[in-house]
Each structure stands twice: as structure tokens, then as C-alpha cells.
């Protein structure tokens, strides 16, 4: 069979397929939709044949274009969003955390060691903390948690200010999460920098408030959202470090492939961490500043930490004989 015969024999089939594709791409359900896959297979077969026999650019390019469009149409990824979301929360996310427990240990150490070191140093020698915070930060901390501060609860009485702070936390904290993740692309250095810096900074704030302010004001404000916010940050950090490690030690894969794999495997961590941080913004915006007895706030805060622990350890496990 030469080129002319091949072309004239199959021409009509190709045109029918193209017509049907146009309908399907426009979102309409074509009358004989069930025939699309078999026609697509025929296109694939014709393309391979034309390529192998080198029937020239005209035919090969046309069939190539049809094959690409057919592939896009047939392999369209459209899942049920609700079901996917539930599966993600109940299974994928906690399972990924457990699978990457080593990374979790690393990011926890990288964050908590500087945190406690800084806090501890405030007790011995306050200059470290003062040098890190700077005068402006210290003034603003004095304003919020100082001895005679206008408390957060009081400031949030104004109409809409809770919503305003919620928006601010989303914009700021979730944005930081995304940068924390992306920084991992530089061999993990960006992620490590953010984690260490945040550890030092939070430690310094706590240390400074213990030194110069009213610690109870701080603790009762942060108790509620602390678990969401800190765990969210650490989990996103895991995704960032995963990319960094894949570039440093790609193992048996090429660096490019290893990076692709790390991106794919770490994705639940990025999304899950960002969700935790968003929840933190909800709690921090609408609940943390409610006037309430400190003991209630501490209880709620500790309960949330406990629930996180249970969720990460037990959610999505198969019990019994499955």
C-alpha cells in the first residue's frame, strides 16, 4: 500500500474522528460517543504505520495532531471533587505523614531546637533575643502582650476586625507556607532557612514576653491555633525538604526524574499543610481573641494538639483483616 492508497482509504475515517473530537471538546455529548475510543485506537494505529513507513510530513503531522487531541479528550482527568477531598483528608494526607515520618522528625528538630534555645537564652542573657527582634518588633510585642497592654481581646471589638485579621493571616501565613515549600528547590536551603528563622523568632517572642511582658496574654491568645499553625508549617516544610533531598541524593534516578517524583510524592504534604494553616487562620481570626477564661483556652489548645496526634497516627489506617 503506498501513500496515496493509504490516504484515500482512511481519509473519511480521520474526518469523522475529527468531527467527533470537535463536538467532544466543545463539551457536547456526541451521539456515538462510545465509538470514540475505538476510533482513537485506529488513529494511533494509522499514526504508527505512517511513521514507520515514512509517509511524509503531511500525513504524519495531521495524524499526530489528531492523536494528541484525542488523547487529551479521552484521558481527561475529571474526578468527583467531593469524594476526592474526603479521601484526601481521611486517607492520603495522614498516610503520607506516616510514610514520611523521618522527614517529620527532621523538620521538627530544625524548628523546635532553635525555638527552645532562644527561649532558654532569654532567661540567661536577654541580648540575643533583643538583637534578633529589634526595637520595632519589641515595641509591637509590648503593645500586645506588655504589662499594661491594650489586650488583643479589646482591640478586636471593632466591627469586622476579626474578619480582617482572618484575611491577613490567610494572606500572610499561607503565603509563607507556599514560599517555604518553593524554597526547597534550592537543595532544601530555602526551607531550612525559613524553618530555623521561624523557630528562632517564635522562641525570641516567647522569651521576650516572659522577660518583659505578661506571658498569660500571649499563651491564651496562641493556645487555640498553635497546633494548626505550627504543624501546618512543619508539614509544608516536609514537602520542601523532600524536593531538596531529591536533588542532593537522587539515588538511582536522574536529578530531573527524582525531582519530579519528589514533587508528586510531596504534594499531599503541601496541600494538607496549607489546609492546616488555613484552619489556623480561621481559629486565630475568629476564636483566639474571644474574651474567655484562660483555662478554657488552654484546654481547647491542648485538645487540638491531642486530636492532631490522633489524626496523624491513626487516620486512614486499615484495622482488622483488610
Amino acid at each position, binding site marked *: 500500500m503506498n501513500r496515496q492508497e493509504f490516504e484515500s482509504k482512511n481519509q473519511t475515517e480521520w474526518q469523522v474522528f475529527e468531527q467527533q473530537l470537535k463536538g467532544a471538546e466543545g463539551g457536547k455529548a456526541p451521539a456515538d460517543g462510545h465509538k470514540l475510543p475505538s476510533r482513537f485506537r485506529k488513529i494511533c494505529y494509522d499514526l504508527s504505520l505512517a511513521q514507520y513507513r515514512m509517509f511524509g510530513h503531511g500525513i504524519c503531522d495531521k495524524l*499526530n495532531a489528531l492523536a494528541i487531541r484525542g488523547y487529551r479528550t479521552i484521558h481527561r482527568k475529571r474526578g468527583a471533587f467531593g469524594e476526592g477531598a474526603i479521601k484526601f483528608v481521611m486517607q492520603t494526607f495522614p498516610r503520607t505523614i506516616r510514610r514520611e515520618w523521618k522527614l517529620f522528625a527532621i523538620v521538627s528538630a530544625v524548628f523546635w531546637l532553635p525555638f527552645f534555645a532562644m527561649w532558654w537564652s532569654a532567661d540567661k542573657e536577654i541580648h540575643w533575643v533583643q538583637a534578633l527582634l529589634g526595637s520595632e518588633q519589641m515595641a509591637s510585642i509590648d503593645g500586645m502582650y506588655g504589662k499594661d497592654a491594650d489586650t488583643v481581646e479589646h482591640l478586636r471589638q*471593632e466591627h469586622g476586625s476579626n474578619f480582617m485579621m482572618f484575611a491577613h493571616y490567610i494572606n500572610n501565613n499561607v503565603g509563607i507556607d507556599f514560599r517555604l515549600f518553593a524554597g526547597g528547590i534550592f537543595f532544601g536551603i530555602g526551607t531550612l532557612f525559613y524553618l530555623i528563622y521561624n523557630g528562632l523568632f517564635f522562641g525570641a517572642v516567647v522569651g521576650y514576653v516572659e522577660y518583659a511582658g505578661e506571658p498569660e496574654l500571649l499563651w491564651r491568645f496562641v493556645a487555640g491555633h498553635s497546633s494548626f499553625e505550627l504543624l501546618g508549617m512543619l508539614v509544608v516544610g516536609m514537602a520542601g525538604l523532600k524536593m531538596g533531598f531529591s536533588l542532593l541524593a537522587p539515588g538511582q534516578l536522574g536529578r530531573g526524574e527524582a525531582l519530579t517524583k519528589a514533587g508528586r510524592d510531596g504534594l499531599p504534604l503541601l*496541600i494538607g499543610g496549607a489546609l492546616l494553616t488555613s484552619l489556623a487562620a480561621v481559629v486565630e481570626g475568629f476564636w483566639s481573641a474571644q474574651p474567655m477564661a484562660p483555662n478554657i483556652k488552654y484546654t481547647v489548645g491542648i485538645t487540638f494538639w491531642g486530636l492532631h496526634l490522633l489524626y496523624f497516627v491513626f487516620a486512614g489506617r486499615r484495622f482488622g483483616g483488610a
Partner: protein
Amino acid sequence: MAIPARRIDTLQTVELAEGMEIHLRAAGPFLRLIAYILDLLVEVAALLLIQLFFNLIFPLVGSNVSQAFMLLSVFCVWWFYHVLFEISPWGATVGKKALGLRVVDEAGGGVTLGQAMIRNFIRGVEMILPFVPLIAFFNPRFQRLGDLAAGTLVVYARPRIDPLLLGPLPLEKVPVNLTLSREEEAAILSFRYRNGGWSEARRMELSNHLSKVTGEVGPKGVSKILGMAQWLEEQR
């Protein structure tokens, strides 16, 4: 064409699960830079419009609420403009769409939400060190780091169909009496299919590479190769 694509063209060969090979035309960094600049303009315009809107309704809802909506809008536009457009049926942001580009996964299909997030979030830090996106020049698929991490690439949305530019018919057929590999055969055929679009000087420049085979240089070499192509074509 299956085998020669790697050397004759800048096409990327991808093997699909269906067992066939398709060719993707990866878009170069220059075009993508222009698309990025267009997108920046779109983002700024969108933010200005949103700000105008909230300035207008500001007396109704109060300063805190309008400021909050403003912050949320900034967040959505800044982090999700690219992401949402790239997972839409367009598969491209406004800038890319305008230039006829499209973001696809490594098999030429649409990207998922996660892939779009990874590739766009990483761009933010790639821009911190402006030489980092230039890594795309050293990748055969022009993938920058974000593309590598997400497993995506940017291609021309419409696979281009080259017009057949046959040029003048050769005067005589020239039998090819040596064994050609498939790639060599395809190269000679491509020369015939495309030479109508070139200047005479370019034709001679290319055909002179084959002077050892044809034994001729200049215009005679050109017509000899065209004759060989004609002979090869009639063989099939």
C-alpha cells in the same frame, strides 16, 4: 516522522500508553517570558479593578471588611491566577493563550491542580535568582525547575501542520545505490518536502553537506538530492 524527529526538528517524542509515539513542540524560553510579562499586566489590571470595586463599596461595609476582601483578593490573584487558568479547559493563562501556548503534563495531557500549584509556586523563588529560570535553556524540553518538579512542559497549543513546500520538480530521478538508514532517508525526503520555503543559498548550503554522496556542490548538488528524493518516494 518517527525516528528523525530528534535530529531534524526540535520535536519532543513521547510514547503514550496506547503504544504509539506522538510529537510535542516545546515552546522556548523567549516566548514564555513574553507570556509571563503579559500575565503580570493582567494580574495588575485585575487587582486594580478589584481595588476600585472595594473602594466603591467601602462606605457600605466599613473599612475592615473591605480591607479584608482586598487582602483575600490579593492572595487569590497572586497565588492562584496561574494555577486556576492552567487547570481550566484552556490549559493556559491569558498570556500563554494569547501566544498560542499551553501547559501539559509529560504525556501531552492536561495538568492537575497539584501540578499547577507546584510549577507556579516554585517560579516565585526561581525569580529570586534571575539566572535560575535560564536553566530551561539547557533542557531539551525547555523545562524550568518548577516544570521539572511538577512534571510539566509548555508546548504550542495547536500542533503545527507544516505546509508541503515542494519547490520545483527535479528534472530527473536519481537512483540511490547505497544503503541508507531510516534517518538518512527521512532527512532526504524532508529536504524535498520543505525546500520550497528556502532561498537558493540555503538549499545549496544544506546540500553541500552531502557532497560526498552526490559528488556535486552548488546547484547541481541540490537537483541531485531532489532527484534522489523523487526516486525514494516512488519506491514506496
